C-alpha cells in the first residue's frame, strides 16, 4: 500500500530527535502530528552546550576517521552498545554537520571561514563542532525553523502543551495511535496514527536535582514500558563530572571547558613518598595556592587523556578525591580552572557557560577557578529498540522499517529515550548526533513502515481508542479526587535523594537493596497522596502527581537492573563487583513490566560486538585500572 492521503505519523517530543524526524517525514509527504509538553523550541535540547561530533578533514589528515569515531564510541561505552548502529551513526555524522550548516546553524568559524573544532572527552582528536557554548540551542533552533516551515505548508500540526499519556495498540499488536491530554483544558483525547515515534528524552528528574530541564521525568517512556514495551539498560545513568549545585537544579559546566584547556585540581600537599595529602588550609583563596600545591589529579593519573578522560572516569575520580577528604574546603567540590586561558578566548569560545556561572554563582571564571561537583546528566538506557544490520555488520540497512522500533511494532524510540548507541557511558557530544541521526536515518524507516502497512489507523475500530481514553480519564479522576495525607512533591523529593545516594557514582548490592525498601515505602505512600488542586483547568499539580507515579516505576527498573548486574562497567560501578565481567554481563539488561507484582522482570540478552572485540578500558591510567579504584561507600546517604 502506498502512503495514502489520510496516513499520518505521530511524533511525541520536539527535542532534536523529534524535530529531525518530523522534518524528514513531512518532507517525504506524510503529515506529522507533533506533541510536546513544552513549545518545541523550548525542549530540553536547548540546554546542550559543548558540541556535536563528526569526523572532519582536519582530523582525517591527522589520522582520524569515521572508523576511529566508531571505535572511540564503543570503547567509551565499555562495549555495551550494539555495534552496527554506532558504525552507521559515525559514518553519517559528517553529512549531518553539513546539513545543519546548510540550515544556517552559526557554527564557530576559523579565520578562513571553515567550521572550527574543539577537543572533547574520550578522544585525542579535535572532532567536535560547536556554536559558542550553546550548541544545542543553535541546533534545535535550526530544526525548529525547518519544522515551522513545514507547519506553514500544512504538513505539520503542532500539539504543544499536550502530554502523551498512553499508546493505543490494535488487536494485531501494532501501535496505531496515542492518548494525550491538553494541559490547559485538561481534555483527554485519542489520536490515530500509522506510526508513533517517542522522542521524549531522558529521566534525570528521577534523581531529583540533575542537569536536566523540568520536564525530563522519563514519564512518557515509563508509560510505554507499563503498556508492554521493553526497557533496556535502565541502570546506566551518566553522572557528569562538572556541575554547579543550585537550589532547584544542578547546572552543567560543559566538558568543552576542559576540551578548551580547563584543568581540574584540588589544593593538596605532596608527601615525601610522592603521595598527595590534605592541604592544611583547604579554604584558602585558590588564586593564592602555589603551583606545587595544586594536585591536577586527572592529568597525573591519565597522562594520555588528562582532563578529557570520559565522564564516568572523571566523575569517579572527582568523587573519590572528595571522599578522601581532598575536596575544596574539605567538602564535595573540586576546582575547574579556566583562569589561564584569558578572558577574550573564554568569551569567544565558552560564553554561554561563563555566563551561567557568573549569573548563578556570582563569580567570573576568567578570574577565579570554578567550584564544581558531579551531577546526574544523561540516560544511557531507554526504550528497547531493534534494527536491521547490514550482512557484514558495518552499519544498518537504510530505510528498514524496524529501524529503532520498540518491542511494540509501530512504536519507535528516537533520541535520548532510545537505549542504543552509547552503551555503558556516552561520550560527550555524541548525544546531539544520535538524536539527529535517529530522526533522519530512522525516519526513513518509519516512512517505509507506514507505506508498507497492510492496515491503516483510519480503519481501526473507534473502540480501541475509546478504551484507552476511558482508562486515562479514570486515572485523572482518581488523582483529582485524591485527598490523602501524603504530599506528592515530598515523595518526588525523597525519591530523588534516595536514588542519588544509592544508584549513581558508586553502588553496592546492600545499598541497592536498601533503596528497594525505600522505594516500596514510597510506592505505598504514593497510594495515599492528596492533590491540592481540584481544578479542571491547567492543573500542574495533577500532572506532577501523575508523573511521580511513573518515576516510581522507572526507579524500580533502574534499581533492579543495578542489582542484577553484578559487575562494573562504564557508569555502573559496584564496590562489591569492581571488575567488568564480559562472560556474564556483556549483555543488554531488559526490563519487562509485570502487572501482577507491579515491578520489573529483568533478563539479559546478547549484544552485537562483531566489529571490535572488547578490550581492557584503561585510558592509559598509570597505577591500577581506570577509574576502578574501590571507594568506600559514602557515609551519609
Amino acid at each position, binding site marked *: 500500500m502506498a502512503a495514502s492521503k489520510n496516513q499520518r505519523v505521530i511524533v511525541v517530543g520536539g527535542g532534536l530527535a523529534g524535530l529531525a524526524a518530523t522534518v524528514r517525514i513531512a518532507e517525504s509527504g506524510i503529515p506529522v502530528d507533533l506533541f510536546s509538553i513544552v513549545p518545541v*523550541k523550548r525542549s530540553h535540547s*536547548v*540546554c546542550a552546550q559543548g558540541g556535536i561530533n563528526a569526523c572532519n578533514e582536519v582530523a582525517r589528515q591527522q589520522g582520524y576517521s569515521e572508523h576511529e569515531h566508531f571505535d572511540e564510541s564503543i570503547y567509551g561505552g565499555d562495549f555495551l552498545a550494539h555495534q552496527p548502529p554506532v558504525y552507521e551513526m559515525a559514518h553519517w555524522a559528517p553529512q549531518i554537520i553539513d546539513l545543519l550548516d*546548510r540550515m544556517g546553524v552559526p557554527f564557530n568559524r576559523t579565520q*578562513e571561514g571553515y567550521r572550527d573544532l574543539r577537543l572533547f572527552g574520550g578522544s585525542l582528536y579535535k572532532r567536535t563542532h560547536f556554536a559558542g557554548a550553546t550548541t544545542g540551542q543553535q541546533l534545535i533552533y535550526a530544526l525548529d525553523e525547518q519544522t515551522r*516551515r513545514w507547519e506553514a505548508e500544512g504538513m505539520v500540526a503542532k500539539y504543544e502543551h499536550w502530554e502523551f499519556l498512553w499508546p493505543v495498540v490494535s488487536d494485531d499488536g501494532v501501535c496505531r495511535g496515542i492518548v494525550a491530554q491538553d494541559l490547559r483544558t485538561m481534555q483527554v483525547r485519542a489520536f490515530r496514527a500509522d506510526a508513533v515515534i517517542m522522542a521524549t528524552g531522558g529521566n534525570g528528574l528521577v534523581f531529583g536535582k540533575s542537569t536536566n530541564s523540568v520536564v525530563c521525568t522519563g514519564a512518557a517512556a515509563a508509560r510505554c514500558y507499563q503498556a508492554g514495551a521493553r526497557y533496556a539498560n535502565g541502570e546506566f545513568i551518566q553522572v557528569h563530572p562538572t556541575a554547579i549545585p*543550585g*537550589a532547584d537544579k544542578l547546572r552543567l559546566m560543559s566538558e568543552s571547558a576542559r576540551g578548551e584547556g580547563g584543568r581540574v585540581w584540588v589544593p593538596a600537599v605532596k608527601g615525601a613518598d610522592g603521595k598527595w595529602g590534605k592541604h592544611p588550609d583547604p579554604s584558602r583563596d585558590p588564586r593564592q595556592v602555589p603551583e606545587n600545591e595544586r594536585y591536577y589529579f586527572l592529568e597525573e593519573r591519565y597522562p594520555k587523556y588528562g582532563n578529557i578522560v570520559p565522564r564516568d572516569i572523571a566523575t569517579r575520580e572527582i568523587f573519590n578525591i572528595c571522599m578522601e577528604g581532598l575536596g575544596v574546603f574539605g567538602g564535595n567540590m573540586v576546582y575547574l580552572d579556566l583562569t589561564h586561558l584569558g578572558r577574550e578566548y573564554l568569551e569567544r569560545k565558552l560564553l554561554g557557560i561563563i555566563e551561567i556561572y557568573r549569573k*548563578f554563582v556570582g563569580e567570573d571564571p576568567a578570574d577565579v577557578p570554578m567550584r564544581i561537583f558531579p551531577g546526574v546528566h544523561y540516560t544511557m538506557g531507554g526504550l528497547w529498540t531493534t534494527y536491521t544490520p547490514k550482512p557484514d555488520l558495518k552499519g544498518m540497512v537504510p530505510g528498514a522499517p524496524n529501524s529503532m522500533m520498540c518491542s511494540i511494532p509501530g512504536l519507535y524510540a528516537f533520541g535520548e529515550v532510545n537505549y542504543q548507541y552509547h552503551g555503558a557511558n556516552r561520550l560527550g557530544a555524541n548525544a546531539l548526533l544520535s538524536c539527529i541521526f535517529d530522526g533522519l536515518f530512522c525516519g526513513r524507516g518509519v516512512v517505509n513502515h507506514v507505506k508498507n502497512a497492510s492496515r491503516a489507523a483510519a480503519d481501526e475500530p473507534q473502540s480501541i481508542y475509546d478504551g484507552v481514553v476511558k482508562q486515562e480519564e479514570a486515572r485523572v479522576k482518581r488523582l483529582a479526587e485524591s485527598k490523602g495525607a501524603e504530599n506528592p512533591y515530598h515523595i518526588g523529593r525523597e525519591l530523588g535523594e534516595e536514588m542519588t*545516594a544509592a544508584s549513581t557514582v558508586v553502588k553496592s548490592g546492600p545499598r541497592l537493596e536498601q533503596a528497594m525498601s525505600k522505594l516500596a515505602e514510597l510506592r505505598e505512600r504514593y497510594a495515599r497522596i492528596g492533590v491540592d488542586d481540584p481544578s479542571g483547568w491547567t492543573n500542574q499539580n495533577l500532572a506532577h502527581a501523575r508523573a511521580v507515579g511513573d518515576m516510581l516505576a522507572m526507579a524500580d527498573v533502574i534499581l533492579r537492573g543495578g542489582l542484577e548486574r553484578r559487575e562494573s562497567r562504564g557508569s555502573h560501578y559496584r564496590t562489591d563487583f569492581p571488575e567488568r565481567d564480559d562472560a556474564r554481563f556483556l549483555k543488554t539488561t531488559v526490563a519487562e513490566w509485570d502487572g501482577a507484582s507491579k515491578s520489573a522482570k529483568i533478563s539479559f540478552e546478547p549484544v552485537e560486538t562483531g566489529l571490535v572485540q572488547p578490550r581492557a578500558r584503561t585510558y592509559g591510567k598509570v597505577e591500577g585500572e581506570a577509574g576502578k579504584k574501590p571507594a568506600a561507600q559514602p557515609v551519609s546517604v
Partner: protein
Amino acid sequence: MTTAPVTNPQPRGAQRPRTIRFRIERCDGPGKPARWEAFDVPVEPGANVISCLQWIAANPVTIEGKRTTPVVWDSGCLEEVCGACTMRVNGRVRQSCTALIENLLAAGVTEVTLQPMSKFPVVRDLFVDRQRFFNDLKRAKAWVPIDGTYNLGAGPREKPADQAERYVLSTCMTCGCCLDACPQYKKEEDAKEWDQSFVGAAVISQVRLFNEHPTGAALKPERLDFMASIGGVSDCGNAQNCVKVCPKEIPLTESIAAIGRAVSIHRIKQFFGVRD
C-alpha cells in the same frame, strides 16, 4: 554521592532573613478576576524565584494560614536558555530562573512580587500564552529555505565576524521580555487582531538574522514585504525599552535600524521594479 554538597558555592554573604515574603498575582483562568496571595518562603542557599515557587507548590499555604491551590507557572531549562519562565518580578519583566533571591536581597528588596507578563493572555496565574509570538515567526518566514534534508555538501563558508554577528541574533529564546516592555506592543486577546498589531523587536531581529544568511536571503523580499506592512518595523516608536530588558543582550535597536533601512531600500526598488 551524598545528598547535598557540604559547602555551597554561593558567595558567603551576610546573614540573610530566614524567610522571604512572596506576593503573587493570581488568576484561575481566562476571564477570571485577578487576586493577590502572599506566601512566606524559607530561603535556601542558592534559591531563585523558581525554587521558591517549587516550595510553594509543595506547601500552598498563604500567610493567613489558608490552604490554597499551588501557583501555576512556566519553566524549562532553569538556566536562561529556553525562554519559558518569563514573568514580572517586582514589576520588571525578566526570566525568573535567574532571579536569585540572594541578588534581590542585596539590591535592597524585602518582598518579591510576581506577576504574569502584561502583553500576553493569562492562561492561569503566572502562565501566559505566547502563541502569537511563534505565529509571527511563521509570518516572518524565519528559516533558511534549504532544498531538503538529503546530503548535498556543506553550507556557505562564513567569516568569523559574520558568524559572531549571526550567533548573537540567533540566541533569541522567544522569551518575550522585549515585547512585554515595549510601549508599542499591544496585548491582543483575539487572534484575529494578530496581523494588525506591531510584531515587536524580536521578530524584526529574526528577519535581520535570516536576511543575513546567504541562502536565507532568498526570502528577503517576502520578509521585507512583511516588515513594510501594518504592524511592521515602522510601528516602532524607538523607545529602546526592548534592548534594556533582553536577557541575551541582543542588539535589538541595531536590528530595528538595519531592517528600517532595508525596508526603505526595498520600497524604492519596488517602486522602480527592481528585485532585491
